[in-house]
């Protein structure tokens, strides 16, 4: 069915941050004319960032309230022809899959912007990232937010790709300019990995385009091929598309796309960029990276690989599951051996994204819902974890787990929050992490019995390394070096408490989120389930 424009809300959500970027740029340009002081400029850009990301978040809530979860089609469509010459359309829309991610992005970006404020920092800490060339920083954050929202809204493959790439540059600069000691290395590593991936995606995209059947653009004009993701999924069967590079067309294209997405997930063995990026990136950037960027990979698989190349996905499902299990168990083991708190959390992200892979590979409704819900929960929990790391790093200026001890006495409130976040992350029942992990495992079990058993072992290890970390950092006699660390300040409370609240609420009452996605995901996975005879 052709989706005609019903609302421009998504366009607003996506491009409000871009407006912010523009204004900041304008201020920078006019700085000499208006005789702006650097200080004023910084404050202005901080304000702009708060306003824009806040506005985006509010509009996301509006989106949520307006969303009809019983309708499995695309909603809030904004659809127009963009480049007639290449049959490219400007096609934004949400369904049960993307709405969760859009809301998550809106929330996390706002949190990240708040976390980028220097409030409550000691004055003498001049080199803190939140005080270094602020306008550029804020512009980059907003640009990044635009890219991420765009990816989740886009329903035209080309548009999707453009937004996907747009995310690259700000991330590169954010890590590279405001990052830690080895930032150059981390930034270029991130950049190269991701670019390699997206180049593969480019080829896959073009290949799909030329293999697609003639159809019509939204303005009714006929087109020989299409980038429209919906049409690619519904009006084409690439199973019959012959060979490419000597391999069956769907398989080779699927592999190309999957690698592109797997790098973002990140899936073993493409995950080594993540720890470096996280360790070097400033806290809010890690928050966004873990909270939203890692979701792009799975989202891409669900949005593109599954519906467009079902037979290839079915063909590859064991591979996906196995890699998922490797992610879970292997990364958990790696966590045990980490000395740097941030690195540990980075690897735990790798481990948790493994559940998503396992869940989606099963093609059961529990698995797929668990996968997306796990994305959501990880998007809530891991930002909290990184904020926590930031808190201690701002105070102690290092993250060596062994370097602390007995902090529970010194910073009770902080310890409590850490405890909660860790428990949520290790899947304590009653907190949100448990629901999604359980769903992934339940969903995967009937199909991959033994693999699931192995990955449940991962749950045990997860508990082990988190508790061990707590023990080493917070319990035992207080390390006198830190006898005067301050507890949480208001900025940190403002960022951490909402996330903590969500962890608890969605643990006991997850249906609001699950309702949004269930129907869409069932429809998405139904043909594949049928293909494997579930």
């Amino acid at each position: 069915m052709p989706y005609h424009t019903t609302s421009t809300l998504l366009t607003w959500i996506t491009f409000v941050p871009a407006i912010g970027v523009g204004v900041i740029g304008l201020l920078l340009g006019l700085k000499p004319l208006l005789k702006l002081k650097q200080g004023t400029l910084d404050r202005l850009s901080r304000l702009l960032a708060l306003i824009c990301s806040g506005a985006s978040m509010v509009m996301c809530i509006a989106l949520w309230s307006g969303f009809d979860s019983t309708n499995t089609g695309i909603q809030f469509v904004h659809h127009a022809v963009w480049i007639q010459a290449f049959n490219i359309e400007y096609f934004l829309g949400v369904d049960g899959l993307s709405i969760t991610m859009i809301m998550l992005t809106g929330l996390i970006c706002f949190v990240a912007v708040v976390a980028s404020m220097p409030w409550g920092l000691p004055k003498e800490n001049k080199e803190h990232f939140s005080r270094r060339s602020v306008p550029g920083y804020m512009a980059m954050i907003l640009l990044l937010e635009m890219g991420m929202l765009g990816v989740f809204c886009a329903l035209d493959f080309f548009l999707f790709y453009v937004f996907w790439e747009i995310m690259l540059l700000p991330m590169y600069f954010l890590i590279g300019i405001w990052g830690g000691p080895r930032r150059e290395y981390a930034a270029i590593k991130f950049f190269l990995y991701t670019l390699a991936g997206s180049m593969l995606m480019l080829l896959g995209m073009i290949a799909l385009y030329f293999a697609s059947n003639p159809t019509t653009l939204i303005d009714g004009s006929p087109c020989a091929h299409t980038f429209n993701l919906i049409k690619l999924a519904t009006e084409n069967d690439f199973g019959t598309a012959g060979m490419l590079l000597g391999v069956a067309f769907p398989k080779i294209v699927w592999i190309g796309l999957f690698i592109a997405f797997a790098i973002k997930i990140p899936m073993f063995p493409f995950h080594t960029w993540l720890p470096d990026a996280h360790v070097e990136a400033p806290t809010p950037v890690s928050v966004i990276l873990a909270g939203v960027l890692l979701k792009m990979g799975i989202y891409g698989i669900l949005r593109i690989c599954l519906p467009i190349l079902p037979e290839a996905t079915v063909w590859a499902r064991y591979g996906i599951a196995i890699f998922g299990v490797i992610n879970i168990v292997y990364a958990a083991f790696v966590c045990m051996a980490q000395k740097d708190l941030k690195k540990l959390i980075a690897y735990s992200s790798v481990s948790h994204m493994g559940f998503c892979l396992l869940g989606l590979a099963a093609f059961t409704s529990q698995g797929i819902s668990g996968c997306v819900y796990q994305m959501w929960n990880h998007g809530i929990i891991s930002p909290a974890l990184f904020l926590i790391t930031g808190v201690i790093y701002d105070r102690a200026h290092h993250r060596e787990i062994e370097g602390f001890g007995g902090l529970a006495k010194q910073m009770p409130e902080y310890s409590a929050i850490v405890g909660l976040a860790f428990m949520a992350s290790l899947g304590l029942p009653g907190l949100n992490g448990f629901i999604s992990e359980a769903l992934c495992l339940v969903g995967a079990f009937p199909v991959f019995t033994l693999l699931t058993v192995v990955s449940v072992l991962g749950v045990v290890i997860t508990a082990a390394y988190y508790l061990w970390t707590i023990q080493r950092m917070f319990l035992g006699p207080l390390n006198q070096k830190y006898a005067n660390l301050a507890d949480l300040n208001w900025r940190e409370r403002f960022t951490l408490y909402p996330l903590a609240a969500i962890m608890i609420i969605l643990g006991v009452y997850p249906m609001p989120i699950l309702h949004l996605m269930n129907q869409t995901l069932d429809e998405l996975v139904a043909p594949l389930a049928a293909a494997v005879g579930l």
Partner: protein
Amino acid sequence: MPNLAINLEGFRNIVPELILGGVAVVVFVLAALQRTSTDIKQSPKGAAARGKKRWQDVLFTNISALGLIAAFVFLFYPSRDGSTTLFFGLMVSDPLSTFFRALVIGATFLCVLLSVGSPSVARDRKGEYHGLLLVMAMGMCLLAGSNHLLMIYVAMETVSLCSYLLTGFDGRLDRSREAGLKYVLYGGVASGVMLFGMSLLYGLFGGLSVQELHQAIAASSALDTPVGQWAALLAVLFILCGLGYKIAAVPFHMWCPDVYEGAPTPFTALLSVGPKAAGFAVLIRFFYGIFLAPGDMENLIPAADSIPWVLVIGIISAVTMTVGNFIAIVQNNLKRLLAYSSIAHAGYVLMGVTAGGQEGFQAVSLYLLIYLIMNMGAFAVVSAVDRLHNSEDIRVYQGLGRRAPLLGLLMAIFLFSLTGLPPTAGFIGKLYLFAALIHQGGFWYVALAVVGIFNSVVALYYYARVLNVMYLKKAEEPVVTVSVGNMATVLATLLAIPTIVFGIFWQPLAKAAQWSANLFH
């Protein structure tokens, strides 16, 4: 026996070239007059004299700029959609030639603006400088429009001679002369080899214009004998050598880095775009004009099978981009780095030539147009920085993002575009190239595309290296924000705009390129 009318008809089609030639003559004359006048008056090197010279700089710039604009205008008036051969098939005026003529005129125009106040051109030689630029522009136009081996040779030599002189133009530097010498000798050999190839072709098929050759090859039995095949093969490859030298494709690229580094920066900018574009126009016209089946953009005539030149060009393309990128990684001089990057880009464009067909040519035209914009921009920044620090070494770029935010930003934009990341125009160019290849779909085509992909990633590494230096590294010396208000900066800014805009909406470009990409109108 063609009558005179046709010739007069023909002249109407080369008005731009005539204008360029005419303006060039005027400039030369003025320059001569000014030279003699100053020589006679023996004017002391006083403020007045210098002021006068600056005034002359402005004068010559304006004259040549106006001339170029006029040429550009008359290029599209009268509008020429159809395809007409002129002067007994010496030249052809069709969309392809029109597009590339516009391209080279534009490039020259930008070069003229970029040369304003350029330290590498002595003030009292501005006249000759601009004159040569105009003649070179004319030559490139003729080259783009030439349809006949003789014409190709003559036009190419015109371009070459001017470039030799302009390369050696920087009176301050020995490296400039050295580059010029290398260039002239290398060029001489290359064109000589090409000429020999032409002679063989002429002998084999008894024609010199593309159409004659086309019919002759389709008809003649020369290719059936092994000797004939050998001869034809040699001929084709010799000519390819000449053209490859013009577009700086491996293995005919070795002159390129030295010349780019030695030549005056503004001229390097032109050199990296203009002759390349004209060369590609000839490449397409010669090969496809001869070997395409009549009236069919997609398929070649059977005779072409005996010479797998498409495959050869494909291989050259792969090698060119790889070599260019790999060597670029270890460069520390920005001009030289851009030289190697331009070799790599020639490789990219060759992907389009390999793909062939409507889409292939469209991709080539589009890419060259975009490359013109972004590369000119990059060189504009380089020459702006050159004026700040009087050096192109990568070290002087350290912390540029802080010291000269505007220049840094512009450079970043152009580099991202050269890398081919959305939302910049460079990405669109790459998109069309890859699209053309993948649409062909054969194993080798896709393989070539994969090589291209790999190269784009490698390329990122050295472009990002510049970014690292500009943004990620802290400047050692205390950070002083320098504001650069000169022509180069303005030009760079103006070029940055289309670099972004065409990345977001490139419909008109695509249409124009499509219109140009047709040999049979």
